[in-house]
């Protein structure tokens, strides 16, 4: 696949920051995900070519990290924390409410491509429990009404 010049430029910049090209793989993958929304097999092949390795070695890295998506995700990627602090503060009823509201199950993307939803392990924002993350923003502490309001304003 053809990689747009602007993304190529960003890759080059990332690589320039490291002594070894290989070390720039994570930033290169993140830039690619920011650009395409997810990392397809074609992107893996293009990155492999760029990094001077084989595609399966790129896939090793992509599949190791939850943060990389191998399928398209919704415009709003909602990750709801269900670890201890959030759990004690009542995340489960909120998760139920969210699922009903957007009409999809865990790990799914809505047919209009607007939402994706998944559970997440502790996102490091326990002081905001119960909390969720939508794309790069975090929201909490949540309650019934706040959750509704946030979703409606998306």
């Amino acid at each position, binding site marked *: 696949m053809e990689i747009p010049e602007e993304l190529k430029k960003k890759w080059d910049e990332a690589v320039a920051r490291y002594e070894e090209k290989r070390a720039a793989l994570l930033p290169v993958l993140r830039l690619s995900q920011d650009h395409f929304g997810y990392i397809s*097999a074609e992107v*893996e*092949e293009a990155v492999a070519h760029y990094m001077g*390795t*084989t*595609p*399966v*070695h790129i*896939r*090793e890295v992509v*599949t*190791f990290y939850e943060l990389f998506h191998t399928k398209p995700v919704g415009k709003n990627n909602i990750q709801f924390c269900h670890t201890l602090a959030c759990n004690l503060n009542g995340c489960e009823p909120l998760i139920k409410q969210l699922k009903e509201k957007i009409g999809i199950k865990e790990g799914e993307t809505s047919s209009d491509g607007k939402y994706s939803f998944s559970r997440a392990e502790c996102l490091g924002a326990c002081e905001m429990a119960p909390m969720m993350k939508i794309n790069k923003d975090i929201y909490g502490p949540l309650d019934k009404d706040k959750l509704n309001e946030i979703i409606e304003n998306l």
Partner: protein
Amino acid sequence: MPKVTIDGHEIEVSQGTTIMQATKQLAIEVPYYCWHPGLSVAGNCRMCLVDVEGPPKPQIACYTQVTEGMVVHTQSEKAKKARKGTLEFLLSNHPLDCPVCDQAGECDLQNFYMDHGQYDSRFDEQKHKKKKAQPVGENVMLDQERCVLCSRCVRFCDEITGTGELGIVNRGSHEEITVFPGKEVNNAYSGNVVDICPVGALTDRDFRFKCRVWYLSSQDSVCPGCSQGCNIRIDSNLSRPQHGEGERVMRLKPRENLNVNDYWMCDEGRYNYNFIDRNRIQTASRVKEGVVEEILFEDAVDSLASVLGDAVREQRHGRIGVLVSTQLTNEDLFFVKKFFKTNLGMDAVESRFSFPEGSSDDFLIKADKSPNTAGAQALEVIASGTYQSGEDLIDKTIAGEFDVLISFGVDIDGLLGKEKLDAILEKVTLLAYVGSNHNETSKKAQLVIPSTVYAEKDGTFTNVHGRVQRIWPAFPPLGQARPEWQIICDLSEKTGFSVSADDAESIFSEITQTVSSFQGLSYEKLGKEGSLLSTVKETVEK
């Protein structure tokens, strides 16, 4: 140079030696999966844990370097407990399908479990299911559930072939070996990943389900597939012929020789064994009034001997040509030359052909697809007379220079085409073929004498770098086949000359006494790894 004590044995080793290497020197066995002498150290399987005095936790032998005064225990309770724990983890998701696994009998999970197993499983959870029997290339079958994730196969494709087809994807207990979608393990050395896989995760599609490994017998040999002469093992099944439709050779495996092939062999050589058991010439034959009839071996030799005897008596031996294949051993070539050139006084004995040339690379695979061209050169069976090459000799035959053409394993049709073969047949009164397998040349020859294949004979090949290497018979010859040197002895006896020998070894010792480049060599000296011709300087051989 640091001294280390392992299980009470002190040894001095060079700086940088790992505990694993030191245990090898002491012949102390430490179990391991991910370590392989031909690959980089990964240190991921934890099976090689040993108890080192000082640090509180056991250390991995494959990565830990020996330091002065280090004391190591490989059999202490601590070491054993650590290995037992490792094995328990490695087996937690293993499917335990040994009864249908080809690796059973040569599997390091089975082997090490005998010493380090938990025996009473504590694993109550559901095992992860992964893909089974998934072809990942023409020669390799993958069973992801059986994999212990040692990464040997991954490192082989990265470090040895540089093709990088295999990888480990996902995380934790979901990790699995895979190829990228649409890609395959199809490098020229792919069979080696099966050899180095310590378990039944990678099996050989050619060998799969053909024979249980405990029915196999092994004989060391040398691959005849090209002039590199990779050291191999011939695994054959003689006790249960029903398992392989009568085929004796079940598989070929590489044998370690750091001077020649390290631990590897190419796929072309590995899967080139069918000719040993298939399409063999098993009986002598002759064409009489246009019909092929089988005859006794002795009668065939008699009839060729009388043609030769008559020619010599009538001073027509200059009208006999001999083609010799470089598939023959040094011993065979030497006797062919001795009989025809020295005794019969013929000039036209030639083994040089400009082909068949095939693919080659800068690792093992050589373009010359025969194992003994360098031997023919050293023994002067190549470009030794007035003839520049085998092709030259054939052209002269067609031009009417010879009445009799004897081919030792040279398939004229295969090399030069049907037209040349037919042209020869129009000119000569006798085309005799001495060889192991049927081909168009043997089918049209008026006299055929069966000879052995390399797997049935004793002898030596000289590889492209001048290394003389032994081959040994893995099993007796099929049918009436005999080694070429013996056929020469028979011919010699019948014609009243004195070319004779009891065995290949005595011919070799004759070679070492008469051919200067072989001076000082003996079968004993060649051993398992071979020796360079005295005319060859030690160089990088690969």
